[in-house]
């Protein structure tokens, strides 16, 4: 009876083995690409992500192929076990990392590299093992050429499929699961081909089927997974969400707390935004009793304008914000209008939806007070608005004794970035006065006043305020040791050091 179900001959196994090399190679490269793409997607647009992930992966593969020498017995069984493990781990890596990121579960970077290393080691083990299995069947020189060409073809296939088809159509999570399935199926296939030579086949078969089932279920449910993750990213009810040509605007509400997110970054929480906006506007504007004309760059939520309009002598405020959707939303939605005191409907206000840089280049008016309330310098495009060239341009619009205030990220979390902005303003020929205030939902936040005159804090505030007092203001200009000034190079357009510094500092914070 045993003869009737004879195993394939040695020659008959060669082709299946070569095909599995093709598949295994394809999967190996796919995990590498997926991990790299996921890291740069979640952690930012930096090439560092990609380089470090690929570097770690290659390193792990090296360890894998070194380890393979220590596999002495049961080559086939080991190969099958590895395939099951690669399939399950590699397949679920993208999904798990995505969820972990959304849930803020643990230090994301450590999880990322742990996953990359484990999968990399396993993948590194694969080819040398198949090579040794094959070596029992063919002459060596011939073997190398064949393995080479099949591995090569597998990698070629993925390097074409991934950017053209898989990443755009399936997404990273589904692509990962798909390749996991392929690995698990290769395991099953191997079990079939070598069914007569394997001890403990049942157990392995069970494991392989379980892996296929799990991965299949994951693939089917991937959509839910993504929704789940988005839900975790925003813990509260989303009351408005909109994707404009410039950004993704999300407004959430939980009880009395309204929050604005731009591209997933918190812009304000209504519970303490008054602290931020009072600190942004009044230390500067209260020292300019003669101010009549004010310019706000960014700040389409109208909250800074609300503070400015508290001064009756202000005759005209110009608000330049890129995104009409932002200024539209904050001049329409009742809840948000309540928040900004209907500032965007003030007859003193002119709203311009334009690019700040272009608008400054094309207009020649002067202002007594200018507020630069831009998002943090997370990308090169925004980094331009924190450069020597930009501040020189702003300076051209500053009236004789006018002042500029710049929202300047956190001097605590991003100390080097904060002082880089100070150095940049100074390199542009302005005198600076840096200060900070505690905004609970942000942490310790920083601002810098700049102008051509020396600055002294106001003796009193003539307008109603909830946070600032004249007595405490001088203390805001004192920096404790852990935020004290450090010597930084200015941010110039030709190197945009600020964007890189900022990225390093905030990454460090996020993954502490």
């Amino acid at each position, binding site marked *: 009876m045993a003869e009737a179900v004879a195993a394939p001959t040695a020659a008959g196994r060669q082709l299946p083995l070569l095909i599995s090399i093709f598949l295994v*190679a394809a999967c190996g*490269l796919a995990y*590498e*690409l997926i991990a*790299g*793409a996921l890291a*740069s997607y979640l952690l930012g*647009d*930096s*090439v560092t992500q*990609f*380089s470090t992930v*690929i570097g770690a992966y*290659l390193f792990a*593969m*090296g360890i894998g*192929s070194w380890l393979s020498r220590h596999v002495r017995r049961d080559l086939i069984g080991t190969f099958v076990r590895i395939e099951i493990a690669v399939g399950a781990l590699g397949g679920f890596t993208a999904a798990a990392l995505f969820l972990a990121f959304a849930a803020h579960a643990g230090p994301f970077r450590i999880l990322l590299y742990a996953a990359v290393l484990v999968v990399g080691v396993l*993948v*590194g083990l694969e*080819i*040398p093992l198949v090579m040794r299995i094959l070596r029992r069947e063919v002459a060596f020189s011939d073997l*190398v050429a064949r*393995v*080479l060409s099949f*591995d*090569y073809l597998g*990698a*070629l296939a993925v*390097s*074409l499929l*991934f*950017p*053209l088809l898989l*990443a755009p159509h399936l997404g990273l999570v589904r692509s990962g699961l798909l390749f996991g399935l392929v690995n698990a199926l290769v395991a099953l296939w191997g079990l079939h081909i070598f069914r007569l030579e394997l001890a403990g086949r049942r157990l392995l078969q069970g494991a392989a089927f379980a892996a296929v089932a799990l991965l299949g279920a994951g693939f089917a449910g991937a959509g839910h997974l993504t929704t789940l993750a988005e839900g975790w990213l925003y813990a509260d009810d989303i009351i408005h969400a909109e994707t404009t*040509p*410039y950004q993704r605007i999300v407004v959430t509400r939980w009880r009395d707390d309204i929050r604005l997110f731009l591209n997933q970054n918190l812009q304000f929480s209504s519970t303490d935004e008054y602290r931020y906006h009072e600190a942004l506007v009044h230390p500067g504007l209260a020292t300019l009793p003669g101010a009549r004309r004010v310019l706000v760059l960014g700040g389409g939520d109208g909250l800074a304008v609300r503070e400015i309009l508290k001064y009756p002598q202000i005759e005209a405020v110009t608000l330049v914000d*890129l995104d009409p959707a932002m200024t539209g939303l904050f001049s329409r939605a009742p809840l948000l209008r309540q928040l900004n005191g209907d500032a965007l409907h003030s007859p003193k206000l002119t709203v311009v939806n334009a*690019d*700040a*840089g*272009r608008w*400054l*280049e094309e207009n020649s008016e002067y202002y007594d007070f200018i507020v630069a309330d831009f998002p943090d310098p997370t*990308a*090169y*495009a*925004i980094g*331009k*608005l924190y*450069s*020597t*060239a*930009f501040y020189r*341009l702003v300076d051209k619009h500053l009236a004789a004794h006018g002042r500029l205030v710049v929202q300047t990220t956190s001097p605590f979390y991003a100390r080097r970035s904060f002082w880089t902005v100070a150095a940049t303003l100074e390199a542009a020929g302005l005198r600076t006065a840096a200060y900070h205030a505690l905004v609970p939902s942000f942490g310790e936040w920083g601002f810098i006043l700049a102008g051509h005159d020396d600055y002294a804090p106001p003796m009193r505030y003539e307008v109603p305020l909830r946070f600032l007092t004249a007595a405490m203001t001088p203390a805001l200009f004192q920096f404790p040791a852990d935020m004290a000034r450090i010597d930084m190079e200015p941010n*110039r*357009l*030709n*190197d*945009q050091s600020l*964007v890189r510094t900022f990225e390093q500092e905030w990454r460090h914070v996020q993954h502490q």
Partner: protein
Amino acid sequence: MVTRRRFLTATAGMATVAAAPMIACRRESGTPLPPGTLAGSDAALGHRLREGGIPEPAETRRTPVLIVGGGIGGLSAAWQLQRAGLPDFILLELEAAPGGNARWGENAVSAYPLGAHYLPLPTAEATDVRALLADLGALKGDPQAARPEYDETWLCHAPHERVYLDGFWEEGLLPKLGASRGERAEFARFHDAMAEFKVARDLFGRRAFALPVVASSRDARWRALDGITMADWLIGHDYRSPRLHAYVDYACRDDYGTDYRQTSAWAGIHYFACRNGEAANAASDTVLTAPEGNGWIVRRLAARMESQIRYGAAVFRLAQDRAGVSADVWLEAERRSVRYRAEQLIWAAPLFLLPKLATGLPPAVAAVCAAGTYAPWLVANLTLREPPAPGAGAPLAWDNVLFDAPGLGYVMATHQQLRLAPGPTVMTYYRALADRPPAEARQLLLDTSREAWAAAILDELSRAHRELPQLTARLDVYRHGHAMIRPLPGVVGDEARAALARGWGRVRFAHADLSGLSLFEEANYRGVAAARAALTALGRA
């Protein structure tokens, strides 16, 4: 044992090549080609010159100094004359606009280059370039300072460059992702070797690879490199990495329009080793650029001498006698020919034209002029409704290179703008036709329709930007038939070519061709040197 890493790397290059035809098929059914124009160095006038039948001059005009050619060489010569207090010259330019290889175009969206697009921070030896930049207000303080301050307007904004391979963009021009440890070791070794060449000096303190080339050491150690090709140099020094080879080939095609298997090793190394300029306010690898490329310099120089430039002026005959030198010129604006008589003539047009136009040219001079071979180039400007999606990896940079592609990538004309929002932009695509002999390549350049070029360019760039055909509102193609002299082995070191610096009687030569390398610094140096020689001859120095 063959490692997995090697497989991955080997596959990397193949993948992009294989991807191209796939996309090409897809396009055929897809978007219609965007409209645009086909233009180039004035072929019609050139033909007219070669075929004869131009009317004889009807009138003789006089000027102390006549400059032929309004490229960087001719304009630099004119600038030097003005600086020296001899504003009395006439400059004849064949085209309707100045600049030659540094010409530019302009539309409602942006100005954009039609040729040369950047100038690296000038080296210590490039004293005239420094003086010129100071004069134009781009360099502040002492122009010859070790680390001068440059006006930020012209310093290329970050990010400068990125390279595309297998679906991902990386910073820099040499892709390192997926390269094996062995390849990376070679990259490092190559980098170190170039760094050594960069600081190498001879007993007289001259740099091995200086810019302008005349300032370089004549030591046989380095001059011998002009006897072999760059590819042979790499192989001889045991560089095996396919990526490194492709990268060096890219450099040779980018700077000289010449395949690295034909470029002299001296010239190839010069690309990596000559630039040592520094700035007080920028990293040393920063370049000066503008939306119109080097056209920003041309524009400013030409504006200072507008009344002395004759455009559409084709010199078709050159002769000299004891009393002076004369150039017969077809003036397109007047639709007739005139003769210019001058005491000194500065020839700032390509050298290959001379044997055809000049009577009495000494055979040795004629031989050098005829010996040069010229690489044809293609420049295309794609006006886009919005910038392309940045893609995975490094963000959109000023210079964006598709590794392993026939073209040299593209630069973004609006990169220097202080803009947050994406808006319409112009992308300038470059391609040197270096894959076949120049004459054949030139024929291909002239025989290929704009539509065919447009389709090929969109296919090539679509590998990295799938949406590009939909984004492109127009695609204008500009052809440079004789774009730049090719530094084949023996060209740069040719003593007979060097001897042209002495001029021919009352004629001074002021084209980058004299150097055998077509670079801004060379054209500028040759122009200024020719003007100095002319001034000396006039007793005005």
